[in-house]
């Protein structure tokens, strides 16, 4: 895999919101990273994850399947990275490892220079939880139907022992995702799918993480709603949030991400600035993947 960032084209990278995006151009308004300049916020080295397959016959030796095969990945602070690939390519396994939700068979993950140890206690991983927010594909499955939206959104504040006025923070973050602060007293079933994904997003960012990780956060949504949530994610990115977005939807990645990593068979086969990878792919797999995407003629 290539070391990140790849050399940028002379004109710079124009990303989805029309700004020229170089790390050094970022204003330090939201606090400089604690890590030395140039060090990535997320660094993975030699990540490998094997699973034992189910036995086909009793007592047979269990076959090993390799879900992730020697993956290196750097994500610089403030960048938006899209990880694309088809089912079984290893993209979800990769983000589980980045989040310390699963233990690699081999390899290491560092976030903000600190090693991520998935075997550590929940308390010992508080620092990582504070740094990261997570949004899933299905807002129906990820919100507890018996809790009010206010309680759902403030959950990370309580769980991570964050001081301050939780109620005020909930109102603030609900407004940020375009929901009425009153929404806090209502329950998930009272909301449409798109509103629920806004609630999920509010919860993911309530504790002001620097990294937002999304696992297909837009896939279950209708196009209209998808465009709205995409706008919210773009706003967060513009405000300096580091995004890691797993998607099979290349349109979303093209719209949102500065960089893209293409995965197949547990490996990252191509990684670079979005415009370069999507418009001048160097790998056969990337070319095949892009050629398969339906387009509306003339658009």
């Amino acid at each position, binding site marked *: 895999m290539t070391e990140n960032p790849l050399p940028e084209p002379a004109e710079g990278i*124009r990303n989805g919101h029309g700004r020229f995006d170089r790390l050094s151009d970022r204003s330090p308004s939201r606090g400089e990273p604690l890590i030395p300049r140039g060090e990535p916020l997320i660094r993975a080295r030699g990540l490998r994850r094997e699973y034992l397959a189910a036995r086909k016959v009793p007592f047979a030796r269990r076959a090993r399947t390799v879900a992730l095969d020697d993956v290196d990945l750097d994500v610089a602070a403030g960048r938006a990275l899209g990880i694309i690939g*088809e*089912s079984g390519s290893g993209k979800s396994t990769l983000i589980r490892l980045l989040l310390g939700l699963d233990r690699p068979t081999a390899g290491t993950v560092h976030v903000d220079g600190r090693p991520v140890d998935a075997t550590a206690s929940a308390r010992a991983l508080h620092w990582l939880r504070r740094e990261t927010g997570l949004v899933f594909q299905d807002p129906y499955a990820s919100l507890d139907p018996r809790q009010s939206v206010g309680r759902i959104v403030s959950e990370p504040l309580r769980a991570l022992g964050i001081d301050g006025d939780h109620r005020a923070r909930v109102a603030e973050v609900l407004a940020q995702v375009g929901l009425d602060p009153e929404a806090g007293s209502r329950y998930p079933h009272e909301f449409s*799918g798109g509103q629920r994904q806004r609630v999920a997003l509010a919860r993911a960012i309530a504790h002001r993480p620097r990294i937002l990780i999304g696992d297909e956060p*837009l896939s279950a949504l*209708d*196009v*209209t709603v*998808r*465009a709205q949530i*995409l706008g919210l994610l773009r706003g967060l990115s513009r405000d300096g949030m580091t995004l890691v977005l797993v998607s*099979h*939807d*290349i*349109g*979303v990645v*093209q*719209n949102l991400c500065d960089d893209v990593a293409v995965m197949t068979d547990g490996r990252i086969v191509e990684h670079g600035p979005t*415009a370069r990878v999507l*418009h001048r792919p160097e790998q056969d797999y990337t070319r*095949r*993947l*892009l*050629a*398969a*995407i*339906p*387009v*509306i*003629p*003339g*658009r």
Partner: protein
Amino acid sequence: MSLEVTDLVVEIDDRRVVDGISFAVPDGARLGLIGESGSGKSLTALALMGLLPDGATASGSVRWNGREILNLPDRELADIRGDEIGMVFQEPRTALNPIRTIGRQIAETIRIHERIDRRAARARAIAEAARVALPDPERIVDRYPHQLSGGQRQRAAIAIALAARPRLLIADEPTTALDVTIQADVLRLLLSLVESDGMSLVFITHDLAVLAQVATHAVVLADGRVAESGPLETLLTAPASPITQGLLRDATATLWRGEDER
């Protein structure tokens, strides 16, 4: 062989979920029904086939070759389904019988309408499996659905739907559950079979870009009504309804745009 739908209404618990939809599919036409979730597109397709869930009632008119088929007794409809009208659904797992081999399920469609013996039916099943480009057809006909990949299952479902050479294929989100490269293969297969058999097609989708690959005409649905209909090209280049304009704008905001710009 044409399909004519006039003022189709589907009600569930006194709620009109399909509220007076009309469209026609002339012989050989490829029509797309497009809309967001809750627009009524899938219920419309189910109503055409007499497959509405319990508690849903349909009224209006669905004419197949001039014959009224809406609310026909199930036995008479069953003759038309499979023989003259084939169906493919989003999730082949639910459309396939998990405890019968692929070959037997293909043969069943054939044997409903043709009296042939087991041996001949098996040979035909193998030929049909080959026609949808299932790998190693002679062995795959002896397999069960769970032994196939998602893309292979959808190919098998297509083989079953087309085994009796229907004149119309109704496909409800047939590629939505598939990965993009497999989606492209399955769409290509569907189109080539529709063309070689001279079938008409009703293709239900939420995805404008997919629709653009398969349909010649489209009906845009919203809240159980037709927002706009016409040749696909017109809808994509000069959409008249705000619903179509919105779908197009939102879709292009999040769709892969290929080689343009930058």
